[in-house]
């Protein structure tokens, strides 16, 4: 670890303190790692792609996992103090009241998202088939040209 503050090496003092506090944060299991998504299908899996084509393949796979948004509860931020508690309580009640409508809208939206993902996949499949066909035809034409030019050389 290296931490320079205004040119001074602070790794032994500030660095050690930061490391200790970070360890405490990690150990708080109730709010541990901010991501609930496993690394295999996390966005950073796109780093594995080594070409544009690979990226597209990975991207479509990840999109498949994300075309529906979840309807889980989310953390409602809370300020400190009495007023903060009242406001947070109010927001929680509002969320409970609105949740039914929210889930209905989410269902419809997710349906549309799924259809869009399908459309992209169909499009990609169609393009792949076309490319294959064109490549085959090109190969046939090239073979034909070779056959035609071969006797001429003789």
């Amino acid at each position, binding site marked *: 670890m290296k931490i*320079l503050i205004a*040119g001074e090496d602070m790794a032994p003092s500030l660095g050690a303190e930061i490391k200790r506090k970070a360890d405490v944060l990690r150990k708080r299991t109730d709010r541990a790692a901010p*991501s609930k998504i496993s690394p295999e299908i996390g966005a950073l899996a796109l*780093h594995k*792609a080594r*070409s544009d084509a690979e990226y597209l393949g990975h991207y479509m796979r990840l999109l498949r996992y994300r075309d529906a948004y979840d309807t889980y509860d989310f953390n409602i931020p809370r300020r400190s103090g009495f007023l903060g508690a009242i406001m947070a309580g109010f927001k929680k009640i509002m969320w409970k009241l609105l949740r039914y409508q929210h889930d209905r809208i989410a269902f419809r939206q997710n349906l549309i998202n799924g259809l869009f993902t399908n459309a992209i996949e169909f499009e990609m499949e169609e393009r792949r088939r076309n490319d294959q066909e064109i490549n085959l035809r090109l190969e046939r034409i090239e073979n034909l040209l070779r056959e035609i030019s071969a006797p001429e050389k003789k």
Partner: protein
Amino acid sequence: MNIHQILAGFADGDAISHEAMQLRDIIRSWGYESDIFVDPARVSPSLYQQCKPLDLYSATSEDICLHHYGINSPSTDLFLASPAKKVIIYHNITPDEYFYGFDDNLAAELRAGRSRLRDICRIADAVWTVSHFNASELKELGVEKVEVFPLLFSSWNLDLTPEPMILQKFTRNLKNILFVGRIAPNKRIEDLIQAFAWYNKTINQYSRLIIVGSNRSSPRYYAMLRMLAADLDLPNVCFEGFAAPAGLAAYYRVADAYVCPSIHEGYCLPLIEAMYCNVPVITRDAGGMPEALDGAGVSYSGLDEVELAELINRVISDKRLHARIIASQQERMARLHARQPELELKTLLGAWLK
């Protein structure tokens, strides 16, 4: 005698373009004719009046031609064919390895740019770089005589009245962590987003991350970042895109800290901009960034995302530390203001000037 410059591209908000304009103004003030030549297809519409098309460039052996080199382009061939005395200004070329998968074509251009670097430097009559870091790269390639002419900084855009819409949008009671720069894979913005996730969810939920910069250079990387922010359930990550000059002034005005986790930079002008605006700067100890900081601000290495979140928290919330950082940055800016670029340029061009 003319002293012209040739650039691969010319864009608003681009550090190389702004340096070229400053150099042109200095050279013109000496009484020489000086213009900037760029391929019209690579010019921002707002800068059409500031440059001339590449095919209008002509020179004699008496002239001097400065070429800003940061990527392979047809402008380099024109520079090499010029009969003028040739000066190459190396701004660094990002290694291609970061771009495969995100943009194979750009990766190939960067690779081509690096592979030509040594030959171009050998053909040039003088080689300048904007940082010692860049100079060391060239020396590793076997280029012997390299002069350092640090990237010029101008505060004209930061002295503008900040864009009121942006001030209104972001001056609520939230801590603003700012990143400014191109959205490109070498910037490692994903590290910052992950650190922000810890900061926002475990340290200060009243916070936001503002990411400012053009996303056109690597749209696929940008898509990955947006996906990551969604994965981490972070509605407070704001992708703002390219900022106009007054907008940039506003972003720096509302920022509580500027963080740059980039792993490869030739110099990094946004660090200087943040320091000018009295925003505490936290950067990775990589590339030319330590030189840009010159002993100011905060630089780190070997921190994971949780530790980086803690460091950001400390810089924002510890008033004594904050004051110390700002004082060091003000000293750095004073040193920068004391610089005499005209004199430096005159010394570098030396005997060629009549």
